[in-house]
């Protein structure tokens, strides 16, 4: 199972400002009553985007100028709360290919990386700069260079960073670890046989 080497993600961006945006907000629990992840994109940020009667609230994702954006910009501790992979799945199914934020909650970060959706951190000032450029011209391309850890937009460039393990996994095309884990399964079984509580 050859995976893409993800070295660069580029596209139009959308800014969803705020700190501590939790995974219940990204995908409300009632949409998790499903046995596949298909179709979750329609419910991304649902209660932030829709009123009870289904009409739209003002929200960056409802703004026609940002339709088709593939890079999401946000604040601190993005993806906190529930471990639901439904959150990064909903983002990905909606069309988001990467998230730039001031910080991420750990489980969300790992879940996203495993789906090949890079999460990179940047300073607030730099994210505001990118957001300002996008607000001024929504067609501006925001390009994340994972190899050199920088974000380019409208002729400017700012630094970004990601965990070494995530960067390695993404740029070398091993972000889904199942192949490697299966290779080590025999060795794991041997070690497990010495762990008393794991014996059958």
């Amino acid at each position, binding site marked *: 199972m050859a995976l893409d080497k993800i070295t660069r993600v580029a596209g139009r961006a959308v800014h969803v400002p*705020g*700190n*501590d945006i*939790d995974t*219940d*907000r990204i995908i*409300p*629990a*009632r949409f*998790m*009553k*499903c*046995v*596949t*992840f298909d179709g979750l994109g329609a419910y991304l940020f649902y*209660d932030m985007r829709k009123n*009870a009667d289904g009409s739209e609230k003002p929200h960056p994702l409802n703004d026609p100028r940002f339709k088709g954006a593939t890079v999401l910009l946000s604040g*601190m*501790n993005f993806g*906190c*709360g*529930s*471990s*639901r*992979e*439904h959150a*990064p799945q909903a983002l990905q199914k909606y069309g988001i290919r990467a998230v730039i934020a001031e*910080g991420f*909650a*750990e*489980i969300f970060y*790992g*879940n996203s990386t*495993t*789906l090949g959706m890079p999460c990179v951190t940047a300073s607030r000032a730099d994210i505001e700069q990118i957001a300002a450029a996008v607000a001024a011209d929504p067609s501006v391309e925001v390009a994340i260079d994972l190899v050199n850890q920088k974000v380019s937009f409208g002729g400017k460039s700012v630094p970004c960073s990601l*965990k*070494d*393990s*995530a960067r*390695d*996994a993404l740029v*070398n095309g*091993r972000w889904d*670890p*199942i192949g*490697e*884990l*299966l290779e*080590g*399964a025999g*060795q*794991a*079984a041997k*070690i*497990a046989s010495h*762990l*008393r*509580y*794991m014996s*059958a």
Partner: protein
Amino acid sequence: MPKTLFEKVWDAHTVRQLANGQTQLIVGTHLIHEVTSPQAFGMMRDLGLKVAMPHRTFATVDHIVPTDQVAEPYADPLADAMIKELRKSCQEFGITFFDRSTGKQGIVHIVGPEQGITQPGTTIACGDSHTSTHGAFGAIAFGIGTTQIRDVLATQTMALGRLKVRRIEVNGKLRPGVYAKDVILHIIAMLGVNGGTGFAYEYAGEVFDRFSMEERMTVCNMSIEGGARAGYVNPDETTFAYLKGRPYSPKGADWDAAVAGWKAVASDPGCTYDDIVNIDAASIAPTVTWGINPGQGLPITGSIPDPAKAGTDDERSSIEEALAYMKLKPGAPIKGTKIDVAFLGSCTNGRLSDFQEVAKFLKGRKVAPGIKAIAVPGSQAVGLICAELGIDKVFLDAGFEWRNAGCSMCLAMNPDKLVGDQLCASSSNRNFKGRQGSPTGRTILMSPIMVAAAAITGSVADAREVFGVSLN
């Protein structure tokens, strides 16, 4: 070289280093439920994979089960499809399923300890962020995503980066009316909702030494609300006494050997921590939240924060956002805030001792008119013991609804939901926007006894006043 429990358990379960620098870690015990596992089983089928160690995965059903209906099919066809899907997958892959018919069903984080599956020195993973609960036994327990559930099913291992360890010591004596829930709400308010990112929390000190297993579980449960992926307490005699004689606990000579191993796994004296935090138990008050994340908490005697008095722009905007959602007035006392619903249950506070403690004070009192109060045992076993002890009757007499086991109104993936902008006094773990099922529903987190006080008075109340000060 002295080591922490975390280091010992991690090292004992390490298979190898992966190419990206993460560790391939053995997951000794895997717990699954109906919401986050079906897609993982789908991936297994798509890839033609077998479950590596079916005897090390245990399933139950909790999130979607109606608490007022036992018979299938469930009224909600989506929920009905999910329980049937889990049943089918467990059969197909040879996994033990604590289905409702077994009498052992319940919230996954209550069932594991209850059955003696959760043991010291082990690694545990579950597709649920509150898996940190199991750390109360001196296990290293992680919440994981669905793709990782597939990894664990297929290999009994997962890829993970090593965590740092922060020791949080709470010494001294808790004041009367202050409970384990207050301790963890206090810790999260103090260190922040992302203060624990990159850390496992080791809870220690005199307060934890004295805590029962159920109290330790309440604290470890909410580690993730402070950003810490895992939280644990070193195992001791309290731990061993809890585990003795449980269905999956070691028996006979195996028991003695296991206890020796469990003793050895505790953090060594003189080991090094990446950070240490000290808290004076007497400084902890009955704590309630006022905002939209579990870190936005204050003592019950406190006032709702005023954005005008915020120290930073960030703080101001977060207070403004929270108060706009919660419809609370800046500067007003939190005490006296009218509630609509009182919810007692969840993986945080749905255990026997939670209901036992509340029942002591609830006897002879009535839920305030117009308040919907529901009590939901965390497992069938908890429900059964409560019935044997007559605790269910105390709740029913007081005007609570007494339900069947499940996650219920903690996350509202079942019929138990807030309606409109109802405000709920809740013993659960999250006060996020929309968390309890209504996109405008509001949650105030608190201890079970405070939920009872709120139910009786119809507003957020100081349980010490409602029930008399000498609570303990």
